[in-house]
């Protein structure tokens, strides 16, 4: 039977986990591990790796998990222990300072007085009672309502502000844990995948990234239209997919998806990622009758019989090829003229001069080829993302508290004397000491001014 572990082992484990030294060590290890994941290419195919590394190097890297660092067991273990260390460190320190925050010392004895910074002592001619009420007013205005305690000929005041700033650090640490938790939720309960949808087609399942599985969406997405536009210099200007969500046979909504403007439905988000040409639907051709020189345009859907008006002839475009024998985009056509056998030929978008060489009643040129696009959409579901954003906001709030607020405490001791009151002021600030010094100066000044004004 296993024995209960000794307090000794537990204690030393808890001690190491709660040490800052460990945290610093982990920060360094995490940094180095992350760097390794940028210097060694990640998630390539074996062939691609063998082009860079020798077979033995490749094998070693693969076994040690360096080819997919950020999802490897050891990296996740590092993050987990780091999180544990963070939690334990923070809880330990919070536990230590909590009593000090919750029950501050209102009255200080002499040794503690001498330990205060910003100490000053002066005499005023006002009586203890007047000094006391004035001091209470001054402190209320600067740091907040003070806590007062009375002795026979003494009054003690204690005022503090910005206590919350001490919790800033814990806010920042908690936010890191929240972010990691959000990432974990996302990886366990979310997914990433993609789907290519042709114009006019519908998709109700997606291919998961990195896995050979297909995930059903629970609804269908139909691509109504895909548009791409370019700048004059040829670089892309806009990709836009106009889609409809079809649920239970009904069209539920219609939206445009553009880069930086995803569509989210039922927790699943669709992002414009890529596109391509699936085929050609139709072409617009210019038909020139050689005898008369007259030209007109005909729109010919692929595979359909297209009349050449007023002639009895018709044309069928059978095929589109993006690059036919190095001559660029081309359409294969069959021309049917009355009393003549069908003629089979190719029309080139970029080489109209080749048509001139073909004898016949008509000469064709390509005016416009309308491609049928497919849109490549990235599809993701991430239930943890809002936890991550909450963590980020908390981190910002935490930083604000840590760097811009400080915990200031002021103690005042008033002692009644023969001709007035002895005033002692002292304070402690855990940050930004220079500004605090000025603040205490101001308290002293305001006190003196208010007292002198109070006199008749």
């Amino acid at each position, binding site marked *: 039977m296993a024995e209960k572990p000794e307090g000794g082992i537990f204690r030393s484990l808890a001690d190491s986990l709660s040490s800052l030294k460990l945290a610093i060590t982990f920060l360094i290890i995490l940094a180095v591990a*992350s760097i390794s994941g940028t210097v060694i290419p990640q998630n390539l195919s074996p062939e691609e790796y063998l082009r860079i590394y020798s077979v033995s190097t490749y094998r070693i890297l693969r076994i040690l998990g360096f080819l997919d660092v950020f999802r490897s067991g050891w990296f996740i273990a590092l993050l987990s222990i780091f999180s544990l260390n963070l939690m334990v460190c923070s809880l330990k320190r919070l536990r230590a300072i909590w009593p000090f925050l919750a029950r501050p010392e209102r009255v200080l004895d002499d040794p503690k007085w001498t330990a205060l910074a910003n100490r000053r002592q002066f005499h005023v001619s006002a009586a203890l009672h007047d000094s006391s009420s004035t001091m209470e007013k001054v402190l209320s205005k600067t740091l907040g309502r003070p806590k007062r305690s009375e002795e026979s000929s003494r009054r003690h005041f204690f005022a503090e502000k910005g206590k919350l700033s001490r919790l800033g650090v814990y806010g920042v640490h908690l936010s890191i844990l929240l972010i990691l938790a959000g990432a974990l939720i996302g990886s366990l309960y979310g997914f990433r995948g993609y789907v290519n949808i042709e114009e006019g087609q519908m998709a109700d399942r997606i291919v998961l990234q990195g896995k050979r599985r297909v995930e059903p969406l629970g609804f269908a997405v139909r691509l109504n239209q895909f548009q791409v536009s370019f700048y004059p210099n040829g670089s892309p*200007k806009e990709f836009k997919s106009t889609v409809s969500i079809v649920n239970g046979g009904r069209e539920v909504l219609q939206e445009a998806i553009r880069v930086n403007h995803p569509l989210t439905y039922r927790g699943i988000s669709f992002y414009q*990622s890529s596109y391509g040409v699936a085929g050609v639907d139709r072409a617009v051709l210019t038909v020139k009758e050689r005898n008369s020189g007259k030209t007109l345009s005909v729109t010919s859907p692929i595979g359909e019989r297209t009349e050449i008006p007023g002639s009895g002839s018709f044309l069928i475009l059978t095929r589109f090829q993006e690059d036919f024998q190095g001559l660029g985009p081309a359409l294969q056509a069959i021309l049917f003229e009355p009393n003549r056998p069908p003629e089979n030929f190719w029309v080139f978008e970029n080489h109209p001069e080749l048509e001139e060489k073909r004898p016949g009643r008509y000469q064709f040129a390509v005016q416009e080829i309308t491609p049928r696009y497919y849109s490549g959409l990235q599809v993701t579901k991430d239930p943890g993302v809002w936890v991550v954003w909450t963590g980020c906001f908390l981190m910002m709030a935490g930083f604000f508290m840590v760097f811009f607020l400080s915990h200031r405490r002021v103690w005042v001791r008033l002692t009644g004397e023969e001709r007035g009151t002895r005033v002692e002021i002292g304070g402690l600030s855990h940050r930004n000491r220079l500004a605090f010094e000025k603040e205490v100066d101001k308290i002293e000044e305001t006190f003196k001014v208010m007292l002198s004004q109070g006199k008749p």
Partner: protein
Amino acid sequence: MINTKLITAVIFLYLGSFIFYVVFLAFRSERMGKLATYWTFFSWIGHTTAILVRWWESYQLGIGHVPLANLYESLVFFSWCIALLYLLWEWRLKSRVLGAFAMPFAFLSIAYAALTSDRIDPLIPALQSNWLHAHVLTCFLAYASFAISCGISVTYLWKLRKEEKGGQAEGLTARFPSLDALDAMIYKTIAIGFPLLTVGIVTGAAWANYAWGSYWSWDPKETWSLVTWFVYALYLHARLVREWRGKRAAVLSIVGFAAVLFTYFGVNFLLSGLHSYA
């Protein structure tokens, strides 16, 4: 274009700025110091004008966008941030000693820009977003803060070495602020840069989530920005909790800036990924 001519002029203006600050330091000339400050301030105004003109000129070309979209524009903006932050520091500290250590960064950054393409290109779809402004602004303000911190660290180490060798009675380094003051300044500039870097990383993640559906893809740029964040987090913990001061802290601050440089340039030129814009 007008803006590139103005920016080229600013390169020389900042060089002048650096020279004036060095002369001020070497000869302890108050007049030189005043000249350096005014010169730098008006050069910065010129710099701001140049950036605004570039913004306006992009609209004239019909492809209007904020000038933060390629390497040239980012270097010009980085330089602008450094000059701005330095001037603010000088004003707050009432001291000009850091000019000779901060302005070289502003000069080098904008001078390097002259070696890159200054074309104004239209924004590709991935860059057409308001997140561009928030993300680039905060990242470069953070980088600038870290650059100044690095400059102060160099000053610190220089003075420390002189003192260790034997007394600092006479000489250039005697005019630097005290080692303690320099140390405190390094901390303050990092305390400004670190939250800014965090906001920069977070806005980058939010943008990535809108553009590609993933707030963190361990892309080399993202990963290196995190490495930079780790280094400065390390600095802050070492200083605030373990009371690291002095030489170790200064060296760490320089290591941090090396990480910033790798995140900014190294990733683009030595590694590959989604982030190859600027």
